[in-house]
């Protein structure tokens, strides 16, 4: 009888093990079967400058969402003379978290409660706005499909934005409804052709996000909102989330690192090398208006051989 039981257990184990292996293989398919159009490196080089900026007659126009020296929100700043321009419709978003542009020059911005909730009431935080490339007008683009609502004990909704040219997707991180003892955040993938959420990564509190095509597939990197850790998750060829995530690095363990969190993740290509820049902030699910000039940016270089990001140095924002 015991022999039968043990043999049964072994056979059952064989099936379970086989099933798990099959599932995992499915998740990491991109490691070995990349799309024919797949190209290693930066995925947002198709982004265009908004058309309206060309009409502003600025010498060195820059998109500025820093919350300093103006009443908040988005401005276009001429870096040559510090002159700023703001469309009257832009005030509706209040202060801002992340922003990004698409392949047509449209801009997308996420609201962020900063000094107080007066310009950023909680009920208007879990959404993103679109600024038309031609008219410069800001309009509500999409409310995140979540039952979790921002409130005065967690007034945050959408946070980080990142556009991927390969799949015409906008990724959005949201902290709406997260509780002190439980993560309820979501990272959404929005298809900009259909203006719908097509995939989402649940129960994850993330702020900064960024997509990069590694040697072994497309990955979305994300900085946790509660810890100084940066993780990544594998995306399939359509940019959908898979189940396969991995720890990348912790800001605290870098030379000169802090116990802060990653608020922005950017990728670029310089001198034939791929670079990642991670900007930090102190975050505790409370308003962010602290005048701390000591915020850092951490710089990494991608090693193709190892499929890893190597830390280089930090600099101050």
């Amino acid at each position: 009888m015991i022999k039968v039981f043990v043999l049964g257990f072994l056979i059952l184990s064989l099936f379970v093990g086989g099933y798990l292996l099959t599932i995992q293989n499915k998740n990491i398919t991109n490691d070995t079967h990349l799309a024919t159009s797949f190209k290693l490196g930066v995925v947002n080089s198709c982004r265009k400058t908004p058309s309206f900026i060309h009409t502003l007659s600025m010498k060195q126009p820059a998109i500025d969402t820093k919350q300093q020296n103006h009443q908040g929100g988005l401005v276009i700043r001429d870096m040559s003379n510090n002159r700023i321009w703001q469309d009257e419709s832009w005030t509706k978003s209040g202060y801002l978290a992340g922003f990004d542009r698409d392949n047509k020059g449209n801009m997308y911005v996420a609201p962020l409660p900063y000094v107080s909730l007066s310009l950023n009431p909680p009920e208007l935080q879990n959404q993103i706005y679109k600024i038309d490339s031609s008219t410069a007008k800001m309009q509500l683009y999409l409310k995140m499909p979540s039952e979790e609502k921002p409130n005065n004990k967690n007034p945050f909704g959408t946070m980080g934005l990142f556009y991927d040219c390969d799949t015409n997707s906008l990724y959005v991180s949201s902290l709406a409804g997260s509780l002190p003892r439980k993560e309820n955040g979501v990272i959404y993938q929005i298809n900009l052709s259909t203006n719908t959420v097509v995939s989402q990564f649940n129960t994850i509190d993330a702020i900064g996000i960024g997509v990069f095509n590694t040697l072994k597939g497309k990955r979305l990197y994300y900085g946790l909102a509660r810890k100084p850790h940066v993780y990544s998750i594998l995306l399939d060829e359509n940019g959908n989330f898979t189940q396969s995530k991995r720890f990348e690095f912790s800001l605290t363990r870098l030379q000169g690192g802090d116990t802060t969190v990653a608020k922005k993740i950017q990728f670029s290509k310089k001198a034939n090398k791929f670079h990642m820049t991670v900007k930090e902030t102190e975050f505790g699910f409370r308003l962010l208006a602290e005048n701390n000039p000591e915020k850092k940016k951490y710089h990494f270089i991608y090693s193709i051989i190892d499929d890893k990001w190597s830390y280089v140095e930090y600099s101050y924002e």
Partner: protein
Amino acid sequence: MVKFKNNEGVTYLIMAFFRLPNKYFHALFSLIMVMFFLSSCSSEHNGSNEENTYEYTGKLITNNDRKEHVNLAIINDYIFAVKQSLKKPIPILRLGKQELTHQDEYRAQKIVIQNKDFTKYTRHPQGNKPLRNEIMTIRKVLAADVSLNNKKRLSKCGKSCYRVEMYNYFYNMSTVGFVDVKLQQVLAVNYYSDAQPDINNRLKNIAIAIAKNSKLVKQELLEVTQKPTMSQIKTSLKNSRCERSYHLCVAPTFVLNDKALWAIVDLTDSTLVGIRWTNLGESGPPIDVTERQLENEYVFREFCEKSNHLQKGNWQFDYQITASDGIEVTQLKYKNIPVMKSAKLLDWHVNYSTREGFGYSDAIGCPLFSSAVVIAYEGPQVEEIKQDGKTIGFSFTQDFRQPPWPTPCNYRYEQRFEFYNDGRFRVAAADYGRGCGTDGTYRPIIRIDIDADKDHESISQWNGEQWKLWTEEKWHLQSKNTKYTREGYLFKITNEKGNGFYVEPNRGQFNDGSKGDNAFSYISINHPGRDEGSNDMVTMGSCCNTDFRQGPEQFINPPESLQNKNLVLWYVPQLKNNGTKGEEYCWADTRIKNGIKKVKVWPCYAGPMFVPVGL
């Protein structure tokens, strides 16, 4: 004796058990093992269905309790050595010969401290005051020490080259010097701001002594007699574990089975900051315990997530730190008689007179999961109030700060309650600067719900001759023409029997350095079922109005009759700051004391006294 390699032993045992042919069993077992290995040992894992939950287990030593180590000989000796070093022409606390392993290390130290680049930051540029500096490590130069910054200079470095690390406590920076003792030359000097080197053995011993002798650590470890492991105490040139104070902090850990007790020790002040338990044994992302984490967790868990009760003398009340309305005191009783339902501070309005419309509405509240921008530090503090050597009551205060305070454009506030043995009590607030300039005016929005009666409260104002009843909701501004009774009372809030409280506004008579309130007072009706400030308010009026439009006016417009109503008093003092030397008010500045930074404050207090009528 039969020896098996790897899994052979297990395989043969199972084969014997089933009496199966060798080749079948090998294949079956290997397949199972491989599948289990592949399915469980991948570096990537399924994370979508994980339940990501958090615990807040940090414990904090509050500032008032951080003096328990002053009698440790090891610390007294160290403090004496620090003070002696500050008297020297080159204010550096050096390593003694007995602390070094080779004579050349001592020579390297002697050479490097004569180098002007190495000692560049050992004194403050203004006034040439000595700053606290300490040599931490001296060792031979390694290949890893050569960087782009010093590659050229160290190219000739042989076996006689040493690396000397010094920490500057004032700037929280490290200076690294490279010395060739044979040539008696300093080859290179590098500076690292916001970076702390590995500490010397002297400080390691102090850190262990502080941790081991702490009451809090002893309580946690109970009867365990285990030496703390110091493996995670620091790694070279990293930021401090005290990210807020910028002090030199380390974390001796006590490992017990599958758990570790982290003790954060502040070596700048020679104190324990706090402790936290973490789990061991799980591979994965690193765990860090820091000052900021302990402070936030402790305040959040103890004072934000739950209501507390305090009973002292004839007084008792509940209190809780809110998401954006500061600390709220509720159900206040004197001799078991209800006297106040609630008192809290909804916002600090700050405006700057030389910049039209420029300023902030600062909400104060919990350090985590709140809509506050200036957050609670530590928990509330209780202190006795003495007069002529006698205890006449006690104060109950809560500190709120923006972490970078007192750097410009960062703020610190205090809520203060005073309870006196004779039944008087005061609801007060203070600003500690520093703000964005010397042209600032601070206006705290204080809401006070006196409990004189359920729905038959009335308010009267002294007009110079008699008490004049207010018949409808309205506001009043304290000015030069305001009349007070001989005792200094302006209002009287009472019930039908005439019992209640006089309201004595602050005119600088409370011996707290205040220059008076110049306050707006509003009386509104407490409407049952209508949220007019009783719940946590998201925001309250504009930062920058200089007139009565501070927020409470929205509850008295249009004015309603006050007859047979429950009333709420809104009190909005106006405090003008001053940064002029000798006249500082609502201000803070950084000074040098014993070679480190110390913040000097000139708080401005405001708030009325409530004096019982008919009690």
